[in-house]
C-alpha cells in the first residue's frame, strides 16, 4: 500500500511550485505555507495511524515549536530562521522524548486522551501566563534568512521556500523510515502487537521513536506557522487544533508520505474558501467531509491516485 517516492519525483512536484511562487498572489503563498506547516504535523500523525494510534494532542508540539520560535525572537531578539527552526525542533523533540517514556505504554483511546491532557495542560498554562500575553498571545518580529532580511514583498515567498526545504528534508527522512524494518513494525503493531513482540520487535521502543519524530515534525510545523502568521497564541495548543490535524491526516490518508500534504492543501482550500464565504457553516463542511471520507474513502484522498494507476 505504501507508494515509493523518489527524490526525482519530489523535485518534479516541488519545482513548478517553487518557480511559480514569486508570481503567486500573497494569500495563496500564505495558504500553501500554512498547508506545509500543517502537513508536517499530519506527517507525524500518519506515523501514529500506521501503528493504529490517534493522538489528540499533537497541538502540544505544534504550540511548543511556535512558542520556542516566538520566545527566542521576541525576548532574545534573535531571528535567524534556520536556527529558530532547529531550536523549535529540538525543544519539541526533547519534550516528546521525556513524555514518550509514559505515552509509549498507552494504546487506543488512552493514548489519544492522555496526549490530549498534556496539550490541554500547556494550553492552561499559557492562557494564564500574563508575561506571554495570556489568551491574546504576542507578535513575532520579522525573521532573517541567513542574515538577509527579505523586503516586505518577498517575505511570504522566502518563508514558503524555507517551508519547502524543511518539508523536503522531512519527506526524504520519513520516506526512508517507513520502509525501514523499524517503520514496517508500525503496521505490524497495529495488526497484532503481541505477535510483533514474539517476533522480537519492541512495540514500546518503536512507538517511543515515532512519538519523538512526530513531536519534532509538529514542532517544525508550529515554528513555520508562527513565522508565517507572525503571531502566536495559546489556541495553538487547544484540542480543536489537534482535531484539525487529525482531519488533515484522515483526509489525505496514510498511503504515502505526500498524502498528509495533499490533505493539508485541500483543508487549506476549504478553510480559505468556506471560511470567507460562510464562517458559520464551515465546520459543518469539515465535519461532513470527515464522515464521508471515513465511510466512503477510508484510505483517504491519496488512495484515489493508485486507483487511477490501476485503470491505466
Amino acid at each position, binding site marked *: 500500500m505504501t507508494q515509493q517516492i523518489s527524490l526525482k519525483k519530489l523535485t518534479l512536484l516541488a519545482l513548478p511550485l517553487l518557480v511559480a511562487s514569486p508570481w503567486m498572489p500573497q494569500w495563496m503563498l500564505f495558504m500553501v505555507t500554512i498547508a506545509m506547516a500543517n502537513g508536517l504535523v499530519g506527517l507525524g500523525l500518519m506515523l501514529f495511524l500506521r501503528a493504529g494510534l*490517534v493522538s489528540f494532542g499533537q497541538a502540544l508540539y505544534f504550540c511548543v515549536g511556535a512558542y520556542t520560535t516566538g520566545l527566542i525572537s521576541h525576548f532574545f531578539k534573535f531571528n535567524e530562521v534556520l536556527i529558530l527552526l532547529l531550536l523549535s525542533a529540538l525543544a519539541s523533540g526533547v519534550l516528546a522524548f521525556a513524555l514518550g517514556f509514559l505515552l509509549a*505504554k498507552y494504546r487506543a483511546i*488512552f493514548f*489519544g486522551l492522555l496526549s490530549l491532557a*498534556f496539550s490541554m495542560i500547556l494550553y492552561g*498554562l499559557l492562557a494564564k501566563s500574563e508575561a506571554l500575553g495570556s489568551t491574546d498571545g504576542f507578535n513575532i518580529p520579522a525573521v532573517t534568512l541567513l542574515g538577509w532580511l527579505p523586503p516586505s514583498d518577498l517575505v511570504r515567498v522566502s518563508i514558503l521556500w524555507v517551508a519547502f526545504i524543511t518539508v523536503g528534508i522531512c519527506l526524504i527522512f520519513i520516506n526512508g523510515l517507513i520502509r525501514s524494518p523499524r517503520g514496517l513494525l508500525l503496521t505490524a503493531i497495529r495488526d497484532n502487537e503481541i505477535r510483533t513482540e514474539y517476533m522480537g520487535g519492541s512495540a514500546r521502543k518503536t512507538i517511543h521513536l515515532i512519538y519523538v519524530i512526530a513531536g519534532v515534525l509538529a514542532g517544525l510545523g508550529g515554528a513555520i506557522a508562527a513565522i508565517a502568521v507572525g503571531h502566536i497564541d495559546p489556541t495553538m495548543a487547544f484540542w480543536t487544533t489537534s482535531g484539525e490535524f487529525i482531519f488533515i491526516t484522515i483526509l489525505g490518508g496514510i498511503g504515502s508520505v505526500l498524502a498528509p500534504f495533499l490533505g493539508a492543501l485541500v483543508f487549506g482550500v476549504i478553510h480559505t474558501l468556506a471560511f470567507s464565504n460562510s464562517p458559520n*457553516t464551515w*465546520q459543518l463542511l469539515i*465535519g461532513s467531509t470527515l464522515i464521508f471520507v471515513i465511510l466512503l474513502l477510508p484510505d483517504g484522498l491519496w488512495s484515489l491516485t493508485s486507483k487511477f494507476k490501476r485503470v491505466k
Partner: protein
Amino acid sequence: MDQLLVVLVDGINYAAWLFLSAVGLTLIYGVMKIVNVAHGSFYSLGAYVSATVVGLWFRYGFDPYLSYLALFIAALLAGFVVGPPIERFLLRYQYDKDEVVILLITYGLFLILEDVIKLIWGVDPYFVSEPYELLGNFEFASMTYPSYYILMVVLALLVGLTLMFVLKKTQFGRMLISVIHDREISSAMGINVGKIFILTFGAGCSLAALAGAFTAPTISVTPGLGVEVIVLSFAVVVTGGLGSMAGVALASIIMGLVRAFCIHFAPELELFVIFSVMALVLSFRPRGLFSLAESRKI
C-alpha cells in the same frame, strides 16, 4: 476556616456540574464502547433549548417555579429527538470498526452539530437568568451563596441515584449489564441489543442536554459552549475509568475540590489543574481509577 468552607461548597457545586456533564459520556461508553465527542454538542443543544424554553416560559407568564420542570422535560426531549436517529442511521453501521475510528466519526458529528446549532439559534448570546435569580441566596455560616447551586447538586444526586437504581434493580438495568459484558451472548439470550443501544444513546445524549439546560441560567449561552465541556467531560470520565459510574462520581468530586482549591489559592492554575489530575491519575492507573479488566487479543 471560613475560606475552607467556601472552597468546599464551591468544590461540591463544581463537582455536581462535572458529574452531570460527564455521566452520559461514561454511560454510552460503558454500554456501546463509543467515545462520543458529539456529547459536547448535546450539552450546547440542551443549553440553547433551555434558553428558548425559559424565554418563552417567562414571556407567557407561566408559573415561574414550574420552569424547572419545563427545563427538565425540554432537555430530555432534545436528547431523545436528536440522539437516537444518529445512532440508528449512522453509528449502527460502524460497530465493526475500531473504537478510534468511531471516535473520529463522532468528532465529525460534533463539528456538524456545532454549526447546525449556530444556524438555528444564531451567534448572539442568550441570557436566561430568571430561574437562577428566582431562588435567591441562602446564608450558611458566614457566607451567602446562590440557592440555585443547591438545585444543581440535588439534580446531580438525583441523576446518579436514578442511574444506580435502574442499573442495579430493574430488568432493563440487568439486561444493560449483560450487554456490557457480552454483546453477542446477550443477543443470543433474546435481548434486543439494538433497542438497548438506541435507548442508551438517547439517554446519554439527554443527560448531556440536561447538564447544558440547567447550566444555561448561570451563564451566557454562546456558540462554542460544547468545546470546553467535552474535554472536561473526557478528563473526568477517563480519570474515573471509562464506563464506570462510580468512577465518574469520584473523579468529579476530586476534580471539583481540587479546582475550587486552586481558584481560591492559586487562580493562575485553574485551567491547568484538571488535566494535571487526569495525567497524574493515568500515569499511575493507566485505565483510570475504576477500570474493568480487559482481555487481550492474541
